């Protein structure tokens, strides 16, 4: 514990600015993964524990496409589309079979896929870790904003994430697809009574969730080392984020992600050895006070 350092940081403008920006960056990257997780739970009531593996697949797809085409844009697109399709197949052939079973069966299917995908990645890409490298466009010195340091690449990521969040929000609130999805989340039997194929809706939601995870993996690939098993720590963090924000609430996920980002940023100064513990503590406290999460609906 280092409370002196924390107070010192909280009284210095540059430290507050830098660590707050760090927190936002961490949070927004987390949000991209967590958004898919919370979307899937909101509609399907499935806690998709394979979400971290989707993220990993995204990173590897991006790595391969980047190596082939030398284009970061193509790499990210390939990651998003590739993982989206994979998620669709995963939903249609596996998860849809256990909707009727209890949550433990769903957990088992996800667990099986975590194991399988980690090994598959090891077989296909090898056991050694990979590094994709920074696209040339972003190899420029960081910007100094009001005494805080902000890398250009992270500015880009923040921009993309905000654009995606906006797009996601518009899709959910303004499109026919969004209306159906929201309806399916509340009353699936009514939706199917209206002649809408709920299976298709579920598949589409899962694909969208997977697409977001793949996108996150692809976008972050230049600054993350790629290994089999890399999805796991992401899974845990995005899981905390969604629980804190409220399972099923996308706005909640954004709030939760930023909260976790700030806890990490300032926790690493005040409690450098207990940052992870802090995150779980926050999760426990919020669950006790409001089991459905900050912005979750009481269910």
């Amino acid at each position, binding site marked *: 514990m280092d409370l002196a350092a924390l107070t010192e940081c909280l009284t210095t403008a540059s430290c507050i600015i830098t660590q707050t920006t760090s927190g936002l960056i961490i949070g927004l990257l987390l949000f991209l993964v967590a958004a898919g997780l919370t979307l899937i739970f909101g509609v399907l009531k499935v806690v998709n524990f394979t979400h971290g593996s989707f993220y990993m697949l995204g990173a590897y797809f991006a790595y391969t496409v980047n190596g082939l085409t030398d284009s970061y844009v193509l790499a990210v697109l390939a990651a998003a589309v590739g993982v989206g399709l994979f998620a669709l197949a995963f939903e249609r052939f596996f998860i849809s079979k256990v909707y009727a079973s209890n949550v433990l*069966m769903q*957990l088992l299917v996800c667990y*099986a896929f975590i*194991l*399988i995908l980690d*090994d598959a990645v090891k077989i296909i890409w090898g056991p050694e870790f990979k590094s994709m490298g920074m696209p040339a466009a972003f190899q420029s010195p960081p910007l100094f904003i009001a005494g805080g340091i902000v890398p250009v690449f992270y500015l880009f990521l923040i921009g993309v994430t905000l654009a995606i969040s906006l797009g996601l929000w518009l899709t959910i609130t303004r499109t026919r697809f969004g209306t159906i999805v929201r309806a399916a989340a509340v009353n699936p039997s009514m939706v199917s009574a209206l002649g809408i194929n709920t299976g298709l809706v579920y598949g589409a939601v899962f694909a969208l969730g997977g697409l977001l995870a793949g996108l996150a993996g692809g976008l972050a690939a230049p600054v993350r080392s790629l290994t089999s098993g890399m999805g796991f720590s992401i899974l845990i963090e995005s899981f905390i984020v969604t629980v804190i924000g409220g*399972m099923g609430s996308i706005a909640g996920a954004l709030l939760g992600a930023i909260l976790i980002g700030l806890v990490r940023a300032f926790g690493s100064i005040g409690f450098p050895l207990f940052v992870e513990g802090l995150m779980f503590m926050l999760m426990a406290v919020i*669950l*006790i006070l409001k*089991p459905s999460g900050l912005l979750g609906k009481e269910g």
Partner: protein
Amino acid sequence: MTAARPTFSRDLLIAGCALAVVLLLPMLWPSKALTDFVIRVSAFSLFATSLNLLVGYTGMVSFGHGMFFGFGAYCFGLSMQRLGVSIPVAIVITVLSTAALAAAVGAICIRLKDIYFAFITLAFQMLLYSLIIAWVPLTGGDQGLMGGIPRPEFLGVDLGLESHRYAFSVVLMVVGLLAMRHVVESPFGYTLRMIRDNPDRASFLGIHVFRAKLTAFIIAGVFAALGGMVMALFVSGAYPEFANWTMSGEGIFMVMLGGVSTFVGPTAGAVVLSLLNDVITRRTEHHGLFLGVVILVFALGLRKGVTDFIADWLRAQREARSSALTGDRT
């Protein structure tokens, strides 16, 4: 048609026979790998069965049961290493402290329902895990309790000897299972089932649901800690992995694999999962792939635990017999 409620004396008899068979096993088949295997299964059996008290009997899906397994291992190991007490005293300390921990955690968690209960138990487990990792002077951090756990002789039992360790673990498992069996077959056990099936009705009938759930949570925690203790004795140490979420995950898988609807299901699951793990890791380094496929086949194909099939089959036999009997009469 209700089967006669099994009586405690019948359970005692079955337990006695099982104990005798398992104790004689090493003489019939002298293999150290077998004794090692049985010791590990003893630990997992206590752990998985105690988890099933919550999952199967009370309908409380806990994702954080590994917390008590890990806590038991550390508590026992630390008592032996730091306090230098005898093994029975260390067991008593472990049981009491686990009960206290479970009471405190349970009092907070039980207020939450369904999936939120699962999440908060997981949060508490990870909190304990983070504490174990961070509190290096006490726990040794990620390296675990190093230097071995002393095994002083007590009442003529020397756990340094493999044969004694074997017998001790097996006895502990059988006694633990018997005690849990007694719990689920007691009126309290039926209260738990009623809470699982219809908590509102139980509440109307004047059952203090919270108190009953908390009691179940504490009992389950204590037996999980006993499992952790057996594991700590086996590896002569305690590691943070014991308290990690993976341990809870394995426990859940054992319960599901073995079957939630029978009492011995989780034990069968512990045997099958350990066997699978050991066989697959011997054969291939891609065990994740193989274990994953096995789990998929189980979850999507079989959809039931191993003992569920046996129970179904027995029931079908019984029904066939009884219909044959009625057929005779008409």
